[in-house]
């Protein structure tokens, strides 16, 4: 798998980072570094989350009650903060997923109007 060149990387849309974080944590508790890596891997290296955005986002979500954090130990035996979804976080994820599909649908209809093809 060839790495995409830098100019092929996509800047995250405002607000989508929160959704991606919630989605990533659906598979289970993870620390900040792991979340960043997961998003990168899942997007085939297209999306790279800056730590400068990721950590404030994690704390923002925690403050709103969608995530909960606990200190734990990583596979390599390092102390790290593990985040997991709360019930409210799961509800929020499904709301964001709906909104996202609506958005994608709407943008798709604008970019490819029915009948123009």
């Amino acid at each position, binding site marked *: 798998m060839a790495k995409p060149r830098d100019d092929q990387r996509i800047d995250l849309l405002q607000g989508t980072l929160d959704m991606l974080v919630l989605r990533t944590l659906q598979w289970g508790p993870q620390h900040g570094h792991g979340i960043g890596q997961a998003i990168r891997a899942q997007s085939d290296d297209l999306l790279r989350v800056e730590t400068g955005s990721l950590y404030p986002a994690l*704390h923002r979500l925690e403050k709103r009650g969608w995530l909960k954090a606990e200190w734990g130990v990583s596979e*390599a035996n390092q102390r790290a903060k593990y985040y997991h979804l709360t019930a409210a976080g799961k509800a929020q994820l499904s709301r964001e997923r709906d909104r996202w599909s609506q958005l994608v649908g709407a943008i798709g209809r604008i970019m490819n109007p029915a009948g123009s093809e």
Partner: protein
Amino acid sequence: MRPDDHDFDEEIRGHLAIGIQERIDRGFSPEAARLAALREFGYLPATRDEMRRVWHSRWLDAMSALGQDMRVALRSLRHAKGLVITVVITLALGIGANAAIFSVVRGVLLRPLVNRDEARLIYIRQSAPGLGADNLTFSVPEIADLKSRVTSLAAFGDFSTVSFTLIGIGEPRVIQAGVVGGSFFEVMGLRPVLGRLLTEGDDGPAAAGVAVLTHRFWTTSLNSDPAVIGKSITLGPRTATIVGVLEPSVPYPADTEIIANIVTSPHHLGATMVTGRTHRMTELFARLAPGATLEQARAELGSIHAAMVSAHPDSYSAKAGMQITATPLRDQITSPARTILLLLLAAAGVVFIIACSNVANLILARSVRREGELAVRAALGASRGALRRTLLAESLVLCGAGAVLGVILARPLVAIVASFAARFSVRALEVAVDGSVLWVGAGLAMAAAVVLAYVPRLPSTDGPASLAATGVRLTPATSRRLRLLATAQIALSFVLLAGAGMLVAALINLQAAGTGLEMRQVLALDVPAPLGEYGARVVDFYQELARRVGELPGVEAVAVGNFVPWRDAGSFGPAVPFAVEGYTPADGEESQRGRLRIVSPRFFDVLNVPLVAGRQFTEDDRRGSELVVIVSQTLAQRLFPNGEALNRKMWWTDPYFGKQPLPRRIVGIVADVDDENVVRAPAMMVYHPFQQLGVAGRVFVRTGGDPYALVPAVKRVVREMSPNQPVERPATLEDVRAEVLTPDRLNAFVISGFAGMALLISVVGVAGVLAFSVSARIREFGVRLAIGSSPRSLLVGVLSEGAVIVAIGVAAGAVGGYAFAGLAAAFLSQVQLPGALPLAAAAALMLGAAVLASLIPAARASRVDVLQALRSE
């Protein structure tokens, strides 16, 4: 749970550790792995800050830092007690004075009246600019004319003040009572706290006499006794039943004890009152009709009044130029106090500016001493914001303490200022310290603190030069700033001082002005005519009274009259027109007007008024004998410059004195006595013998001893003759005049207080600047002493530095003051410029005080220990 700073650090460290381990696993060297992980992370503190920002708001951070700084400030200020005391007291004076004045201004000028819907309540005034009469009030026929035609006013209320002898509540005494029509309380929008108020049902000559007590009278004199309702009282010749108590409200137009219906006053039912168009004694209030504006009402009143004037040319002379005006009641009530209160507010503001600039000077001096400390902090990476915050914390502590003390001070100050303002507006009686004082105090302190924090300049962060500073270094720029502020204080204080000097000079002039009367040994008393006695019986009463009082030990002479000089001023209306045989007014000249006075024989002896020509009144000038008068010298000379006034006949031409003129022969001419004005002016006086008019009410007793010692004896004599007879307001003429001068004295006193405060603060400021400049130049003085300067020359040098500051300040104050007065004169007619004498006195006082205060730092300069000074750096 909210994560703390440690959590953020740990989390970041964990992230980096995982990243490094991952790279080592992929084959990086540990060093390369560390660098790569760090590079990937980006700027670490920024991320950490962002994480913090999620949990802590920026504002909270700033506040906690400021709190930290304030604790530091408290600790460091503990070592500068002198500074703290000076700053706190200076600010407390400035803030306290402002808070007090502001409370009074708010209470008197801004607060709405309690009257229902007070914005639609107006006061109607009739004036005659041509006669110099501001407020003529209205006559009953005039009110009837207005009532019947005006449509923009929904209802009228009328109020007139009458003196009654009140029997039935407390001691028999003469009171001022309001006499009102039934619509008065409805128009005023006032409610009773007990019983009922007067209504239309109480109007007319057939109604029963009823009266309402004012709240003040009920609470202060009657202990709020509810049993007073239904009580019967005697008001002069009539009786009335007390039916209610009025709610607390501004007593306007007169502060009376009771308010009664028309029927209680026989005068109000008489022909003079009901039909006399020029018999004006009623004040008029009205409520705007729904939808009508004040402008509409003014216009309508103006045109109806003009029509009324042209319909009755005999009652309205063209020269009088009668006018009608309508003002909202609140403006009418507050207008006398407005000028003086705004003046006080300005004075308090100036004192506050002086206080602030003085404190700024002290803080500036302190910050120069701290320059080294601030420079070190700047070099260690403290941002300019952090340094500012340090300064702000310190000035907040200082100003906060000043504000607390100022607000405590404000309470007694409000009492003083309110009692002062009560001379001008009855509303001031209700003023109390309220929450607004706290807000004003806090606001002023905050303003001062912020200003003060920005006065000192921060050390420049470029280069280590500023770090080298060890002792106190006074740069020319700082020195200029200090001097500039001190000069500004002197200039402002000088303006206040000159203003106070002007008032004091005017007061001294007033007090020293001659009156042409015996002042100290004459006791004046109010003894109204006994109830139900008229004409000859009244004359008998006063003659017997004078005879019996004259027999008391120590009494030299007794006279009766109708007018206590100055105290009764204005109560007998404007001067009355008259004519004299042999004197023809020039074409278009208004007829002469004189003041009608009634006196007994010996009146002029008792008051020591010299007889210029002719004779005095005697016991033979009685009812039935030839009608005679005595006139004042000015009247005689103005009408007959060649001195032929004696034995001519004069008569009053006002219709009030009857259609047929009653000629009276001028039998005497006496020296002028101006009994209306405290500043003596030529007076047109016409004295009548009291036996011919049968009216008196005032008794004058001349004694060789202490006049007040006679009061009980005189009271006893009067009570023996008539048990229910009031005897009131005994006072020597000197004290009567002093009482009339009280507002002037209070004006001078309060403004002088402000000026004194300003003087003190600014002189301390000058001394402070000198002290600082001396302490910064210790080494210089040491060198000068070492090379042979005399201590004396150093002392004179420092003193002259102070004198220069004051001289420049005084000059700037004089120029600025005149410019401001010129500006103010364009808007206010009453602005006067001080004469040369008070100005010079103020300048001399300023200079003297400043030189005295400069002596302390100057003495210090002259006593510098040479060796120590040279070793000090």
